[in-house]
């Protein structure tokens, strides 16, 4: 039995309302003991002095691009980026080529992830065959092969009848249906948030209503079916209000918010003079939406954070704003961006911050992890809250560099990531 002892860390585990200076003993791949002082001469020692030990962070929303788009990202490079960003587990969306709409692709993703041996990679299966919004994909087969949720992400489930049926069917497996809420007719080919900034820049806008009406629809369908809806990358004030109302009525809806939608506004498009690393979908919203979303995170309406890590090759992003693809990478900047914003500037407690990245996402998808209780998987994220570093895309493990945070100096970075009791990443000290 291999043992690892994390010494002198500040253990923050919202699953047991814990925030104390403790030693953590890991035996094989499980948490074995938590105590103020643990002596174990045979155990390897990881000095946690000055660090926070939290349940391994989980990102419910990433795009790893393999199979099909390996020039943007592979499962191995994405998993490396994940652990370097403090994430022990990620859930990858099915919009690959071929689409993850059948158990063969689901199994392929899991096999590749296990070869990489870094982060846990949980596949999200498609709702519809080839993401076409027509026939249901093989939901049960994918669930059996290891899919942890269903989504046509990248595309909304436009057909309300299909959404109804998947919400009903997925209940058999107790899995969530993740929806990218966007009314495509209203979005009308827009490339940024519709409002004064888009008007001034002469760019076509995506109105907030394009998201809001679909969130309202999904809340209604969750109520009708009793199924579990998870709203991906929520970005609008009214969308949040619809969710708040639905939750108050006891409907099984959850949602996530991304670091970029919380930390940036549509003004970034103007300030950067059409830098395509400010282009993502949903778009960066105006300040009123960003403030409401932030409030939603602080008051608990937003269940968890997620990156929507969307790698694109530099050549694809080096196009006219209208032509460049939507999406930004997030795995290697998410923790410092959100720590800086939520804890340092908005005084969110460290326990709640950790919950937003671990305990809560684990609960939303029903994943193992999110806890450092004895017997839990030994997935641990170590944070150095004093570390002050500058975002340098050239040092990303991700194959892509499309971040809107390049050059930002941020405080509070991951220091090491443990998955199943193994240290899979540690920040090099200079």
């Amino acid at each position, binding site marked *: 039995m291999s043992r690892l002892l994390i010494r002198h860390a500040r253990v923050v585990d919202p699953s047991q309302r814990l925030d104390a200076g403790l030693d953590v003993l890991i035996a094989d791949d499980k948490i074995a003991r938590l105590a103020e002082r643990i002596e174990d001469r045979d155990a390897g020692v990881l000095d946690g002095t000055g660090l926070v030990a939290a349940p391994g962070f989980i990102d419910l929303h990433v795009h790893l691009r393999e199979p099909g788009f390996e020039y943007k990202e592979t499962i191995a490079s994405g998993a490396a980026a994940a652990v370097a960003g403090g994430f022990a587990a990620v859930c990858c969306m099915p919009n690959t080529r071929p689409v993850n709409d059948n158990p063969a692709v689901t199994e392929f993703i899991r096999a590749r992830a296990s070869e990489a041996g870094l982060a846990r990679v949980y596949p999200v299966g498609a709702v519809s065959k080839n993401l076409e919004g027509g026939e249901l994909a093989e939901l049960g087969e994918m669930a059996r092969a290891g899919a942890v949720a269903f989504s046509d992400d990248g595309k909304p489930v436009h057909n309300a009848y299909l959404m109804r049926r998947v919400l009903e069917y997925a209940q058999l497996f107790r899995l969530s249906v993740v929806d990218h809420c966007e009314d495509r007719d209203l979005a009308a080919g827009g490339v940024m948030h*519709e*409002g*004064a*900034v*888009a*008007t*001034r*820049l*002469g*760019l*076509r*806008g995506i*109105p907030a209503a394009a998201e809001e009406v679909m969130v309202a629809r999904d809340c209604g369908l969750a109520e009708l079916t009793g199924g579990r809806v998870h709203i991906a990358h929520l970005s609008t004030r009214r969308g949040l209000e619809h969710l708040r109302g639905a939750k108050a009525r006891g409907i099984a809806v959850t949602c996530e918010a991304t670091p970029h939608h919380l930390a940036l506004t549509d003004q970034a498009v103007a300030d950067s*003079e*059409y830098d395509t690393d400010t282009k993502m979908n949903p778009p960066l919203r105006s300040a009123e939406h960003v403030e409401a979303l932030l409030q939603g995170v602080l008051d608990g309406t937003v269940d968890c954070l997620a990156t929507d890590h969307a790698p694109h090759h530099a*050549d694809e992003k*080096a*196009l*006219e*704003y*209208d*032509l460049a693809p939507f999406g930004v990478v997030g795995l290697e900047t998410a923790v410092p961006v959100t720590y800086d914003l939520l804890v340092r500037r908005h005084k969110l407690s460290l326990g709640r911050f950790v919950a937003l990245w671990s305990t809560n996402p684990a609960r939303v998808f029903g994943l193992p992890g999110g806890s450092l209780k004895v017997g839990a998987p030994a997935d641990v994220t170590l944070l150095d809250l004093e570390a002050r570093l500058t975002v340098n895309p050239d040092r990303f493990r991700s194959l892509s560099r499309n971040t809107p945070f390049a050059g930002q100096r941020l405080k509070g970075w991951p220091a090491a990531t443990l998955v199943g009791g193994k240290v899979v990443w540690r920040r090099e000290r200079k």
Partner: protein
Amino acid sequence: MNVAAAARLRGKDLVGIDPLSAGEIQLILDTSEQMREIAERPIKKVPALRGKTVVNLFFEASTRTRFSFEVAEKRLSADSLNFAATTSSVSKGETLIDTALNLEAMQPDFIVIRHAYAGAPHQLARILRSSVINAGDGAHEHPTQALLDALTIRLKRGTLAGLTVAIVGDLQHSRVMRSNVLLLSRMGATVRVAGPPSLIPIGMEKMGCEVHGRVEDAIAGADVVMMLRIQLERQGRMNFPTVREYYDFFALTPERLKLARKDCLVMHPGPMNRGVEIDSRVADGPQSVILEQVTNGVAVRMAVLYLLAGGHGEPTAD
């Protein structure tokens, strides 16, 4: 309005009106007035840009603007190269950036760019050593158009400050409107915009103008009425019903023009759709300055090239 004249333009590029100060706008207009005089000479050419190379990089069809730039370049003795691509860069298989870098490798001094997508000139200005001049980018800006409009108004009225200017038409898709709103409001004019409400972009009022749905409200008492071209292919696409109805509700007709001041100037950036957004009786009437706009376009583009080249004082005749 008392504007301290800028001695020179601050940047190497002219990507829009937005980055310009009132002083810089005034400098361009003052210089344009001097340039106008060159066109009156028997030999319409000065050596100010001799040995300079200008690439006219037009990704979108344009006759008037490209000719106007070419005439301006020739009158300043620059060497012009024309690069016309009506298709988008992507469908050609070469990206905008690669195209621009290839052209820059031939060491031009200026790149004049017209592009169907907003922001393309800004993206090029960031990476190119040459001066980038925006000749219209998507629905964003068309700075030399706004400058020539301003010059036309100033020559007729002596000033821009205190005037009321109505801009009417498809606001959503108009770069001419955006540049004009920015310029005129910065120079102290009151700007009113009007058009079909389905073509008024959200947050328009934050650009510094009054927004009207009814054309009559915008025109009433105006010193200048500027009509925008309607793109006919937009009819029947949920933007507005028909050209016939457009004329009925939004065109500048002799009757509507009576609502404005008696000496109100009638302007249009061209090309006009006669009988759609403007009635021929108005377009060809005594208040129309539409052809003077075209004349002034050459002078404004000469001034912009001259100032960006670092010129100062009066361009001398050789």
